[in-house]
């Protein structure tokens, strides 16, 4: 043996293997284990799915009672035919896992505060945030409650069994791409993960308040309550609510009592302030459109129901299409990977859809603890015991962190001395949120899947608590309806808009509004119902709805305006309407701008932009330059008006809504905030501000023009990001028009996440599309194959098939049989 060369070459081999088998630092994250990742028999090459891959197979699995047939169509949508409901949910779990395993598990890692476990210490603040807001606690509460319902327990369990049956079939080289990239392994699915996922939806749709309540408190303290009321008023002049104006509401059964000291300690003189920022602030535009038109307005004489929920645009998509056919029901629609049943869809008899209610169901209470042990807190004149909850956060490559969360009668103490920042120093803020008290989980959707008529619909949504939704409904029998349903707090005006004192019960919630007092209309005279996240009612509704700034205003106006005059409606008309890019906000704001612009004071270039703005058709279509110019001028006007007033704020504050500025300009030409407080010898008028705004916007527009990027779609630059925000796995620069105030509410990273149109004719005519693909594997041709059609406004006719039809349908390409064994 040649000892030295042998040792040297052995050591070199070992060193190379170790190097290639280690995750190395790469930017802010870590590289994959390169040798493993590139190994063609184990690494990512195994995820390169053949484009002519067959999905047909015969599976013998344990856990189902009878044979289940799944026919998969050319878009990779499965049509499940089972002989009982539990078998169907088992197979739905199996298919979700087969096509979306990494995503569904990752989403529960986010929701459950476990990202540090797979991504390392950098994610600890996000994990702690989600633990402390009560995500795990809330999921456990809901599961405990729903486990008492044998049917719901069996449903969620069957789904989990199906997911695990798939995981069991996975060979090491078959695990999804992202596990290999991040270097971890799939784990068993458990029912609590379904509830964790639903908690995440509640967070996304109702927890903006966890950030805005702090910011609003700061803003109120910074400006004083009077100025605050002007900038964040609770009246929207142009509101067109969900429930038509002049509807008479019954007398309220609850009359919340306003605390006596509200002026001194709540609205004016509180010193509560905080700049704690949520790591993932739910998007303000998390909204949606839905509407249903009665048969009297359609060409066929049958109702049409439409829904497009606006959410973050992600790959793999939040949605997964599925048809579930059992002896009890035959349902099609968009499902959540991570949860059984269809969430938005239709069955043989009815169709339903949802938009976010955006009501305020999350509040902070300022708790006074005896000492930093957080054992006792002052409440109603005595020291009360707090309970302590400990959650273990695992951290990749580091020891575990034991997170101690004190729990008061309001809820978990979100901010304390261990979780704080400069401005929450010394403050204990407990969070009270309808989501982390026990909800009804999936029960509502489960029942909607089976609903046959309007009574079933009402019973199904009656138990729904959080996140509050506008449930739209239409049936083959001709009924249409909409109801805003959820557990909504009976509030006194401004209750919960700011941090509230937590030392006594007078600021606590005094009751939940009874279901029969939630806003609802059935078969209204105007023959349509609609919602677009606007305030559900006018000010005659007897309960405080929460700060008006929570509610987008303009989409509701244009939807109702269009539906009011439409007749002889077809599904095609509805498709065009969902893709409509008309900006009703610009329609109201442009005349105000033009009124105050003195063109003599503009240079040639600025005049040219103003002239394009004048000629603009108010549509935010892909190639419209007027849309770019309008938005640039409005944004810089908002800066001109408010920047000086806010620049000295030391804490994060809320910026006034565009609707508020517009409303002020429409009401009054003398606007107090127009004056630039930094110029001592001059009082600026709104004319001065608009002139400056045009000049500043023009400078910016000129740069865009030089880069040949003045077209609206180029400026907006819509993208569909991979959940890990890796550009190579995302779809960038998607060419699509629209914007936040258009019915087609597509912004840069947000928009219609599932567009659905259901025409309730005898044989249902349904269309749908979402910006993604059925297969979550980035190596599949079905990963993002819907995106271009989605952007172009093309819809797929949804195949709603009987089993006999599915067996021989030309668009059915594959067949999986599940046999018990």
């Amino acid at each position: 043996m040649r000892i030295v060369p042998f040792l040297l070459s052995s050591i070199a081999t070992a060193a190379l293997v170790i190097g290639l088998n280690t995750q190395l630092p790469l930017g802010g994250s870590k590289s994959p284990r390169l040798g493993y990742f590139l190994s063609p028999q184990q690494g990512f090459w195994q995820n390169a799915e053949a484009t002519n891959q067959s999905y047909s197979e015969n599976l013998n699995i344990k856990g189902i009672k009878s044979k289940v047939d799944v026919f998969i169509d050319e878009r990779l949508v499965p049509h499940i035919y089972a002989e009982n409901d539990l078998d169907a949910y088992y197979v739905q779990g199996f298919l979700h896992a087969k096509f979306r395993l990494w995503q569904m598990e990752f989403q529960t890692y986010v929701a459950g505060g476990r990202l540090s476990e797979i991504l390392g210490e950098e994610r600890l603040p996000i994990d702690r945030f989600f633990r402390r807001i009560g995500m795990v606690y809330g999921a456990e509460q809901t599961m405990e409650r729903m486990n008492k319902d044998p049917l719901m327990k069996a449903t969620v369990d069957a789904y989990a069994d199906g997911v695990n049956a798939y995981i069991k079939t996975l060979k090491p080289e078959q695990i999804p791409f992202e596990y290999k990239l991040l270097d971890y392994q799939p784990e068993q699915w458990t029912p609590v993960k379904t509830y964790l996922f639903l908690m995440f939806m509640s967070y996304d749709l109702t927890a903006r308040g966890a950030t805005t309540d702090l910011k609003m408190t700061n803003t109120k303290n910074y400006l004083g309550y009077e100025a605050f009321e002007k900038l964040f008023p609770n009246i929207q002049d142009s509101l067109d609510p969900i429930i038509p104006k002049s509807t008479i509401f019954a007398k309220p059964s609850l009359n919340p009592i306003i605390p006596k000291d509200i002026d001194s300690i709540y609205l004016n003189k509180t010193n509560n302030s905080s700049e704690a920022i949520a790591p993932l602030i739910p998007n303000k535009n998390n909204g949606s459109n839905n509407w249903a038109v009665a048969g009297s307005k359609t060409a066929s004489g049958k109702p049409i129901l439409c829904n497009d929920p606006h959410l973050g645009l992600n790959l793999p998509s939040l949605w997964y299409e599925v048809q579930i056919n059992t002896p009890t029901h035959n349902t099609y629609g968009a499902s959540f990977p991570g949860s059984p049943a269809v969430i938005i869809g239709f069955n043989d008899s009815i169709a339903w859809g949802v938009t976010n209610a955006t009501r305020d169901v999350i509040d902070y209470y300022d708790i006074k603890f005896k000492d930093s042990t957080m054992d006792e807190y002052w409440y109603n004149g005595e020291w009360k015991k707090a309970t302590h909850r400990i959650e273990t956060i695992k951290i990749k490559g580091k020891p575990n962190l034991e997170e101690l969360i004190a729990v008061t009668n309001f809820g978990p103490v979100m901010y304390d001395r261990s979780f704080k920042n400069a401005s929450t120093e010394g403050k204990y803020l407990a969070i009270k949120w309808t989501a982390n008290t026990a909800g009804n989980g999936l029960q509502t959707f489960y029942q909607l899947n089976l609903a046959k008529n309007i009574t079933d619909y009402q019973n199904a949504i009656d138990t729904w608590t959080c996140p509050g939704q506008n449930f739209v409904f239409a049936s083959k029998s001709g009924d249409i309806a909409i109801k805003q349903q959820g557990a909504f707090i009976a509030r006194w005006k401004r209750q919960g808009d700011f941090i509230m004192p937590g030392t006594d019960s007078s600021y606590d919630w005094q009751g939940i509004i009874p279901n029969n007092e939630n806003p609802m209309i059935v078969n209204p005279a105007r023959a349509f119902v609609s919602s677009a996240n606007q305030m559900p009612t006018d000010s005659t509704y007897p309960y405080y709805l929460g700060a008006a700034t929570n509610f987008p205003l303009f989409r509701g106006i244009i939807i109702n305006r269009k539906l009011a005059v439409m007749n002889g409606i077809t599904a095609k008309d509805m498709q065009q309407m969902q893709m409509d890019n008309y900006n009703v906000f610009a329609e109201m704001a442009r005349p105000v701008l033009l009124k105050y612009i003195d063109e003599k004071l503009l240079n040639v270039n600025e005049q040219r932009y103003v002239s394009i703005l004048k000629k603009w058709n108010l549509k935010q279509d892909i190639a419209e330059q007027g849309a770019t110019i309008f938005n640039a001028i409005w944004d810089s006007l908002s800066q001109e008006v408010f920047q000086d007033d806010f620049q000295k704020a030391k804490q994060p504050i809320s910026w006034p809504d565009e609707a508020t500025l517009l409303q002020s300009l429409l009401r009054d030409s003398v606007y107090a905030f127009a004056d630039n407080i930094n110029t001592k010898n001059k009082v600026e008028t709104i004319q001065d501000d608009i002139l400056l705004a045009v000049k500043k916007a023009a400078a910016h527009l000129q740069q865009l023009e030089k880069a040949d990027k003045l077209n609206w779609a180029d400026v907006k630059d819509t993208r569909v990001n991979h959940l890990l925000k890796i550009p190579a796995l995302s779809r960038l620069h998607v060419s699509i028009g629209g914007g936040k105030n258009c019915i087609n509410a597509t912004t840069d990273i947000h928009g219609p996440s599932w567009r659905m149109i259901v025409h309730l004719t005898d044989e249902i005519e349904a269309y749908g599309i979402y910006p993604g693909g059925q297969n979550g594997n980035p190596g599949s041709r079905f990963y993002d194959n819907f995106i271009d059609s989605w952007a172009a406004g093309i819809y797929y006719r949804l195949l709603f098939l009987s089993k006999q039809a599915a067996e021989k349908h030309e668009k059915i390409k594959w067949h999986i049989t599940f046999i018990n064994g």
Partner: protein
Amino acid sequence: MKITTAIFLTGFLAFAIGLFTILPWWSFVFTSFVVAVAIHQKPILAFLAGFIGVLILWVLIAVIKDTANEHILSTKVAHLLPLGGSYWLLIFITGLIGGLVSGLAATAGCNLRKTS
């Protein structure tokens, strides 16, 4: 032609042990080592046989997978790593990495025996 036999055996055994995906990805280190012990050559030739054997194997499997996939995934990974989106470069680097590890293991195997 000892080297041809060695290349073929290295590739074949690396493939065979690679079918046991429960084992680590670098398990072919042992087979390449054994081949170099069994078929004794000069160190440089042993290295080349080890290197080429696994390089060809890895490139071959990658190309087969990639062609069937119409470069969908390889193009994404070649942007991710980053290799400018070139799937050919990615395939080459894949082969190079497998080959280097195997070549070094073969060199160690060769050095286990006295020079002939």
